[in-house]
């Protein structure tokens, strides 16, 4: 038994090293040969990355990165992390990362400037309401009348302006911490997040808040598929897409999701 395990480990190690030496898909396509440089947000948020420590592999996105790296033939030790803001990632010019993962929704406009991998997660948008509005019904009609807030760099702004059409002026913020402050100060009733973020904020961050509903994932097209961001024309994209396809078909991706993301079945759909 032990022998078998050792054999498996050794052969795995061998295949991994030969994979790179023998012209694996990712060979020669990364910034530093033999290393995979991955960027994430500063700070990186729960439940995507736990404790702002992606190198631990804990958290959904961190786990996906290590699984993708393994699939492409990189050892865990060969994954190097850097931090970047959204702006840094979409600037034209050379990048300091092979790919960037921080819940980038894939949109056609963004795709013109940068490249995206195949989606690794489909997140429905969810409505988080503050303590003053927990009794709001999960209907479009009821949602219209709320004082809305959202993150200015999130695709939820589009959803709000195109579908929900609130009657009061929208307030927009720089990041989730500011939205949190605005809800706590009762300046806004509700905010739109991706479902896992909303569940986390309501459970841990904002006292008395509640996730009252989610939008059907297919209804808001495009905005909710998370992809890894790459420099326009990066040849590594093909390798990542292959790795993700493999992980989808063999169930790895679903297993990671089940490990790190909360069960979301309890949240009602908004009609």
């Amino acid at each position, binding site marked *: 038994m032990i022998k078998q395990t050792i054999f498996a480990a050794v052969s795995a190690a061998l295949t991994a090293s030969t994979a790179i030496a023998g012209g694996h898909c990712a060979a020669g396509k990364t910034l530093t040969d033999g290393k995979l440089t991955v960027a994430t947000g500063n700070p990186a948020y729960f439940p995507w990355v736990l404790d702002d420590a992606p190198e631990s592999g804990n958290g959904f996105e961190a786990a996906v990165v290590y699984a993708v790296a393994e699939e492409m033939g990189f050892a865990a030790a060969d994954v190097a992390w850097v931090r970047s803001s959204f702006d840094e990632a*979409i*600037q*034209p*010019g050379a990048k300091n990362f092979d790919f960037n993962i921080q819940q980038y929704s894939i949109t056609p406009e963004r795709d*013109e*400037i940068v490249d995206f991998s195949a989606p690794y997660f489909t997140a429905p948008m969810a409505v988080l309401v503050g303590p003053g509005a927990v009794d709001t019904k999960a209907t479009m009609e009821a949602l219209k009348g709320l004082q809305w807030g959202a993150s*200015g760099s999130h695709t939820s702004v589009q959803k709000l302006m195109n579908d929900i059409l609130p009657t009061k002026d929208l307030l*927009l913020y720089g990041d989730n911490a500011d939205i949190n402050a605005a809800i706590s*100060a009762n300046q806004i009733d509700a905010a739109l997040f991706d479902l896992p973020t909303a569940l986390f904020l309501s459970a841990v961050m904002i006292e008395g808040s509640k996730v009252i509903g989610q939008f059907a994932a297919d209804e808001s097209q495009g905005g909710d598929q998370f992809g890894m961001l790459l420099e326009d024309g990066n040849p590594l994209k093909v390798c990542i897409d292959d790795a993700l396809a493999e992980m989808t078909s063999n169930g790895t991706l679903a297993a990671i999701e089940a490990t790190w993301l909360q069960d979301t079945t309890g949240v009602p759909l908004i009609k």
Partner: protein
Amino acid sequence: MSDSKAAGKTRRELFEQRQRRRSTAIAATSTLLFLLAVIIFVPMTPGWEKVQKSFFNGAVLAKTFPKLIEAFKLNIMIFLWSAPLIAILGLLVALARDAKSPALFPLKILSAAFTDVFRGVPVILTVYLIGFGIPGLGLPRPWNSPYIWGSLALILTYSAYVAEIFRAGIDSVHPSQRSAALSLGLSERQVMRDIVLPQAVRNVVPSQMNMLIALQKDVSLLSFIGPVEIFRQAGVYKSLMANFTPYVGAAIIFLVVTIPATRYADFLLARQSRQRS
């Protein structure tokens, strides 16, 4: 004599005219060469196509510009209600700092502390602390509005600067005028109101114009606590389209407003220095 007048110019004037023409020609040529170099060489750089696509994208600009102008109205509104309050509070603080009566000493200390604190803290921190902090105390709507408290943060910060400028203006009025007015039997109050302030305020108008221009730009800092003014609106488009062109559009709108204002301030300053010389 009348002949040379009719001929128009002295030899010296002719010489100076030639000199001027020559330097104009040189300036024009060098500007032209510079522009040509920019127009020819910048597009030859390897990254130009990408830079153009994400910073100077005509289609994106056309799509976002009307909304940006719409959002800019909010900037103007915040500016319009903040500016008069800043002028009033700034003047009051300046007067408090200049108070001569010993009984008003606490006021003097307070106003000095006020200017020290609000000039020393970055505007954005003040906006955050007041914009989220005070409403967090549990004020009911609409009194917890970020518009109110954000504006207050701007008003406090800017009145600290404006107060210092007013104080410099008050100090610039020669003490002999005070003495003269007092000896004529005017009260301290009358001296300040009728003799010192009218001159002080006139003296500092150009400097205060610069504060107005700075305020006009800093109104955008309110976007951090919620209001969707032009900077935030441009940021939303930037995120949705992964394109920085909306920021360039916002910059254009700002320039259209600030360049005339800056020129006017320069003109006032030049006129003032002419009058004084």
